[in-house]
């Protein structure tokens, strides 16, 4: 088990390294080839060639690719010095072209928004989706099942900027102002205010995922309930409650756990639609702004962070799966 985990972590580090290499090349070298100089972006509107050259030198863009990449990579671990007054302490992802802030700090300060959003929504959609799916599977084609699957279809089809705006127009600006004046409050600052401000985005985001999870759980449960070992469980004389929850759900939940981990990983770096709809500044919104203003260091930093979340989620899912399904070999 330990060796399995270590091997998975080494693999993940390799993947992250590869992503950093490709994205660095993509953002700092490819534009040069295509005729767009990052130094020009940094220097501002219509710079003189002398200024561009100075900026190029300052950013190290005049050095060979591998040297630049090495400075970038080592900066993450040891920090970097761009000149007097421009020390960038480790972990360093450079400075924003736009506001001159360290990229790492920018991302870290926005991270609580995404973590709060993703974790809260995930808890809601998991409970909501799985319970609806189980009830639907136990009474297929019943009125509940038809209604739940109809709602699920709506949940899958309606984008967050529809449900989000609908919720906002009712509960924030509309007739039932129970969540007025939404703004993000840190969990450590005021947990109650934190939750109150997040309930709408949580439920809107969870609605989308709960719909997917309800459909998935229903399909998994229907399949599992027809398995021979469910008949065995009944033949033992187990009450139906135990047959469903101990035997059927145990099997049906396994693939759902896998997808759940990956969904959270992906969501942490890309809840941009939700953030935008509810005017919250998380990583996704930071990325959109950075792309709009061609703030390459921030784009690069956010990309690496998003990749990091997905890779870590993958490791956790693999370990959890090996734990959940004893048939998985740790080799």
């Amino acid at each position, binding site marked *: 088990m330990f060796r399995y985990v270590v091997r998975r972590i080494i693999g993940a580090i390799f993947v992250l390294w590869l992503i950093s290499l490709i994205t660095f090349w993509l953002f700092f070298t490819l534009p040069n080839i295509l005729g767009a100089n990052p130094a020009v972006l940094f220097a501002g509107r219509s710079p003189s060639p002398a200024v561009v050259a100075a900026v190029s030198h300052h950013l190290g863009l005049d050095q060979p690719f591998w040297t630049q990449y090495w400075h970038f990579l080592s900066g993450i671990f040891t920090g970097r010095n761009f000149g007097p007054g421009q020390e960038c302490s480790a972990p360093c992802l450079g400075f924003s072209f736009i506001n001159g802030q360290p990229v790492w700090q920018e991302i870290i300060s926005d991270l609580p928004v995404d973590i709060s959003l993703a974790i809260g929504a995930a808890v809601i959609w998991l409970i909501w989706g799985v319970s609806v799916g189980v009830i639907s599977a136990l009474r297929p084609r019943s009125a509940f099942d038809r209604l739940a699957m109809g709602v699920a279809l709506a949940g899958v089809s309606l984008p967050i900027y529809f449900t989000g705006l609908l919720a906002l127009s009712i509960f924030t600006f509309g007739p039932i102002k129970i969540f007025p004046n939404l703004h993000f409050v840190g969990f450590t600052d005021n947990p109650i205010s934190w939750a109150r401000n997040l309930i709408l985005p949580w439920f809107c985001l969870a609605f989308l995922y709960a719909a997917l999870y309800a459909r998935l759980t229903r399909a998994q449960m229907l399949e599992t309930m027809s398995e*021979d070992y469910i008949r065995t469980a009944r033949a033992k004389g187990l009450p139906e409650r135990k047959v469903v929850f101990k035997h059927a759900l145990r099997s049906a939940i396994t693939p759902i756990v896998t997808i759940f981990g990956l969904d959270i990983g992906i969501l942490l770096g890309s809840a941009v639609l939700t953030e935008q709809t509810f005017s919250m500044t998380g990583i996704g919104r930071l990325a959109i702004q950075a792309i709009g203003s061609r703030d390459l260091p921030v784009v690069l930093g956010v990309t690496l962070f998003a990749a990091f979340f997905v890779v870590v989620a993958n490791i956790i899912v693999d370990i959890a799966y090996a734990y959940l399904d004893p048939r998985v070999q740790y080799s």
Partner: protein
Amino acid sequence: MSSTPEPLDGGVSAPAVVSEAPHAFLDVRDLRVHFPTDDGLVKAVDGLSFTLDRGKTLAIVGESGSGKSVTSLSIMGLHNKKRTRMSGQIWLDGTDLITSSAEQVRALRGEKMALIFQDPLSALHPFYKVGDQIAEAYRLHNKVSKAKARERSIELLRLVGIPEPDRRVDDYPHQFSGGMRQRAMIAMAVSCNPSLLIADEPTTALDVTVQAQILELMKEMQREFNSAIIIITHDLGVVADVADEVVVMYAGRAMEYGDVADVFYRPEHPYTWGLLGSVTRLDGDRAERLQPIPGNPPSLINVPPGCPFHPRCPYGSLNGGKEREILPLLEETTPGHLVACHLPVEERRRIFRDEVAATL
């Protein structure tokens, strides 16, 4: 182990109608199991009767789709009540399972009657340890601690011949071989000393040497617990090996019913002849081809009128059309030997003697 039937579980009250209670330990009377479907009514079992005493083994044989497994699931009460129409009587030790509530039947499952399935890999839960699955059945019907139940699991695994049971108890099903899984399945089934053990094709998924061991094990379990066993199979070799009595089923009905010697050496139904003729023999002449029964089993939605076997019966036309109109009843030809066939008794005995016996 006492040979007298144990009293009913304290929590389960016997149904009101006791006066009719029969003498046999298991008495199935005119069992009908129908499934309404979009295509029509599937008459999977249509008027089946048999009896079985403790310590005895009854084999139910027939082709696929003859209603064997449906019968076993009916006794266990494992059909979905909403999708099944059941009638008739199933008396188990003085309790009619058909009129008992689902909860009463559930309490009997695993405790008084247990089921061994065909494919032990899919019948065991892949995510739970073998020992835990056995212990679960035991703890459900016996108020014991986890540690006690675990001891019982180890003891049962030893009883069914699993080597190193105290280590194997913590294995998962996929770590067992096919034969060991079936042994574990049997251990689970006998964990509460059931007085009725139903084995639904217990050896079909196993290779031949393991088959013999499993059958031997089942006989041992029967001696140990004095259980009644119903073995469902299409393998007549298995029947000859373990059964005391045989029901030959076709299209949800019994065609022939008697003790194993009658059915094997004095079979009177053309369908039984067909089944016996389809058996591979090692001592036979290679030039003699197997004689499969022509045609296929009928659809259980449109069972042929009259004798359900008549379209495939080589002797059906000897009855002058009666076979196409009248359903033959199961009638006693010699004491304890029942046959459902229109052919006159003397005629079918003559055909067997002169035409069929030599080819078997």
